[in-house]
């Protein structure tokens, strides 16, 4: 169906099947994480059973995007019963079909069980994981089939674009976004409305809207999940942005590693073109807009907007100095607005619900919600979206369920390789741009890595620096050589070859790199080191003064000679006969901790 105006969109929406038309809807997550645990096979099996029993008219099987509860995947959600089955295996599918879909009996053994509770949770929305969440950017993820445009249309898809073209001038659209207080979700936190205003103000008949889907932060998968789960919202938003700034061309720059996300975006773009939602004279207006996908090829620095633009032009992704900003001279030297995926995902909701609604969410200066990728030493690994101002404690303990084995959580790394650590004294800090800056951290793009008491912070800092020095594009000297030197010092320290004055060198070097680098990558690269040095000085000193042990150690008094440790050691470095005291050969120990977990008498000491 070709959509020519608002009326034909509404007519189309009315004609499409809704969830309420079916007796039961079975939503199966088909995000990357669940697919790797055979969710695609589960879907194929369900399809087979439904066909076999000839009940396609009453059972609505939906292959959705990410539910966010990745650690418990594959997940099947059943509506309207509000039941969520977790960790579903291929062997469970027949039972779910026979019991639940045919006979309406809940399969209790597959329900999610809250930690420390004996009873499983019956209603999905009552789960701790979802209770404190508010889904705006992720509103359609896990609700619709991202490969079917009709599913998006039913959920008011493309209505925001229709309303903008029908009722509002470009300046009014910019004003709405500006008043909503939406700030760039890629990490910068710059007002999206202002960015659009600046780009709109430059006179040129060729302008570009660019979607930055080069999510390079290790441990973050917000943007990937949105592209996989709700690609049409990105397309609609880019068209709205194009209308607002006067651009007829949109470009999505996406990582080559994100195969599924790219595929879903391609499908969505083609569908939108077929239905006249991309192309010439959208909704009967003078406004034309189309989108092209540009693939990255694995370079973290391309998340920086000037480097991203260079890469789209077919060059090495090296950043340029600003000004001029892309709003004046961007892609092909034309005015361009680069916005992040999650930023775009918020736009249709803002247009439909109004800027006051959006501004009422969150805190005074940080409006709306933020999506975080929660990972590391935490029970509920996954994607969470919370109103700004939610505390870290709520995210990690209430939503995340705390440490899986109840260990103490030592720190949270926020903002990935550009960010810093937050220690437990600050876990009650509300998550918003200003509060995080006050404690020396930053919002970043949304990676939250939880680290427990066993984590070696010097190793963590070294890990991030290894990443940034490897990803440094080499254009400017402070970043190219400076991060390498810092890494070498850290390597020396962790090899027990360092000395106390190395700590001073790290600090001086770190501050110099921060101030002298050309782009965001270099300017933030020392952050993980400086921040861990500030909060965990003693760990650095243990290395610098060479007082740190590198191997596990058996306390002879407590050892009962049960051989359990020796049996689990992957490198066979534990010696000792049955009922005799065991000993770890220090030089061979890889400090994996397997013996520590296996020991029944707590005789093993951590390094």
């Amino acid at each position, binding site marked *: 169906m070709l959509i020519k105006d608002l009326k034909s969109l509404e007519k189309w929406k009315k004609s499409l099947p809704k969830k309420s038309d079916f007796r039961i809807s079975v939503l199966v997550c088909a995000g*990357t*994480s669940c697919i*790797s*645990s055979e969710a695609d096979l589960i879907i194929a099996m369900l399809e087979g059973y439904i066909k076999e029993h000839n009940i396609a008219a009453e059972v609505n099987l939906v292959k959705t995007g990410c539910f966010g509860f*990745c*650690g*418990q*995947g594959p997940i099947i959600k059943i509506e309207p019963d509000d039941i969520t089955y977790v960790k579903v295996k291929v062997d469970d599918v027949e039972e779910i079909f026979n019991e639940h879909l045919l006979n309406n009996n809940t399969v209790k053994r597959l329900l999610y069980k809250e930690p420390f509770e004996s009873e499983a949770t019956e209603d999905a929305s009552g789960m701790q994981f979802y209770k404190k969440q508010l889904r705006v950017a992720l509103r359609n993820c896990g609700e619709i089939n991202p490969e079917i445009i009709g599913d998006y249309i039913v959920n008011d898809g493309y209505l925001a674009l229709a309303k903008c073209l029908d009722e509002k001038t470009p300046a009014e659209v910019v004003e709405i976004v500006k008043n909503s207080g939406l700030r760039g979700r890629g990490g910068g936190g710059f007002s999206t409305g202002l960015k659009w205003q600046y780009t709109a103000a430059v006179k040129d008949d060729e302008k570009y809207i660019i979607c930055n889907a080069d999510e*390079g*932060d*290790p*441990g*973050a*998968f917000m943007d*990937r999940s949105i592209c996989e789960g709700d690609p049409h919202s990105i397309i609609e938003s880019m068209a709205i942005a194009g209308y607002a700034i006067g651009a007829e061309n949109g470009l999505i720059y996406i990582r*080559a*590693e*994100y195969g599924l996300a790219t595929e879903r975006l391609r499908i969505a773009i083609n569908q939108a073109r077929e239905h006249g939602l991309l192309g010439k004279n959208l909704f009967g207006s003078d406004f034309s807009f189309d989108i092209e996908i*540009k*693939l*990255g*090829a*694995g*370079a*973290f620095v391309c998340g920086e907007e000037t480097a991203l633009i260079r*890469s*789209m*032009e*077919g*060059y*090495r*992704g090296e950043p340029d100095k600003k000004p001029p900003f892309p709003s004046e001279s961007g892609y092909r030297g034309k005015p361009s607005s680069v916005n992040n995926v999650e930023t775009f995902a918020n736009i249709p909701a803002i247009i439909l619900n109004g800027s006051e609604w959006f501004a009422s969410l969150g805190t005074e200066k940080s409006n709306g919600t933020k999506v975080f*990728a929660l*990972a*590391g*030493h935490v029970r509920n*690994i*996954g994607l969470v979206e919370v109103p700004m101002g939610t505390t870290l404690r709520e995210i990690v303990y209430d939503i995340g369920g705390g440490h899986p084995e109840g260990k103490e959580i030592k720190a949270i*790394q926020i903002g*990935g390789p550009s960010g810093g650590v937050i220690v437990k004294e600050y876990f009650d800090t509300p998550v918003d741009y200003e509060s995080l800056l006050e404690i020396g951290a930053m919002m970043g793009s949304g*990676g939250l*890595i939880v*680290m427990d008491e066993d*984590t070696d912070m010097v190793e*963590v800092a070294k*890990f*991030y620096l290894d*990443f940034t020095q490897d990803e440094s*594009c080499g254009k400017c000297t402070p970043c190219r050589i400076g991060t390498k030197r810092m890494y070498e010092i850290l390597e020396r320290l962790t090899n027990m070859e360092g000395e106390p004055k190395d700590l001073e060198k790290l600090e001086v070097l770190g501050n110099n790199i921060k101030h002298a680098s050309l782009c965001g990558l270099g300017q933030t690269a020392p952050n993980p080191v400086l921040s861990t040095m500030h909060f965990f000085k003693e760990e650095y000193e243990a290395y610098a003064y060479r007082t740190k042990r590198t191997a596990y150690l058996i306390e002879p008094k407590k050892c009962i000679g049960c051989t359990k440790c020796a049996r*689990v050691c*992957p490198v066979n470095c534990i010696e000792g006969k049955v009922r005799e005291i065991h000993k770890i050969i220090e030089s061979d120990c*890889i400090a*994996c901790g*397997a013996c520590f977990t296996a020991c029944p008498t707590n005789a093993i000491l951590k390094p």
Partner: protein
Amino acid sequence: MKNKILDFSTLDQSLLKKLDAYIDALEGDRQEQLIHVLHHAQKLFTYLPHNLQLYIAHALDLSGAHVNGVVTFYSFFNEEPVGKYTVSVCMGTACFVKGADKVLDRILKLTNTKKNVMSEDGLFTVKDVRCIGACGLAPVVTVNEKVYGNLKVKDVDAIIESCRGDEHVD
């Protein structure tokens, strides 16, 4: 004798034809689409040897230095041949804090290779890769397309052995 880099005859001619067809079908500014062309070439040839890079440079009317500069800038492109099994160890933060470095060490030891260098028997190329976004399964290793999650160091042996035993991994 001809310069080896300029010798295109060692390249698979049928694949080159496919690459030509892809390049001919490109719309708009071709030079700007170098990265897409390289992606496609790597899909066809599995890696990008120097003579192939130069071939692409000719086809797009770019300098060889420009193409090589782009190939070496992006980690996705291989200049060296890759083994039958590409073992990628995710080094994202979530995997790292769960011991991915130890998993990697074990794999390197078992396959007797260095990172990014094909093993002598042509079976393995071991890579440490950036976050593949399956943090819920950390630590994660992929062998070609197959994902192995929640790994422990001792699980690695069986995975490598199953490749060696030439059991089909897909």
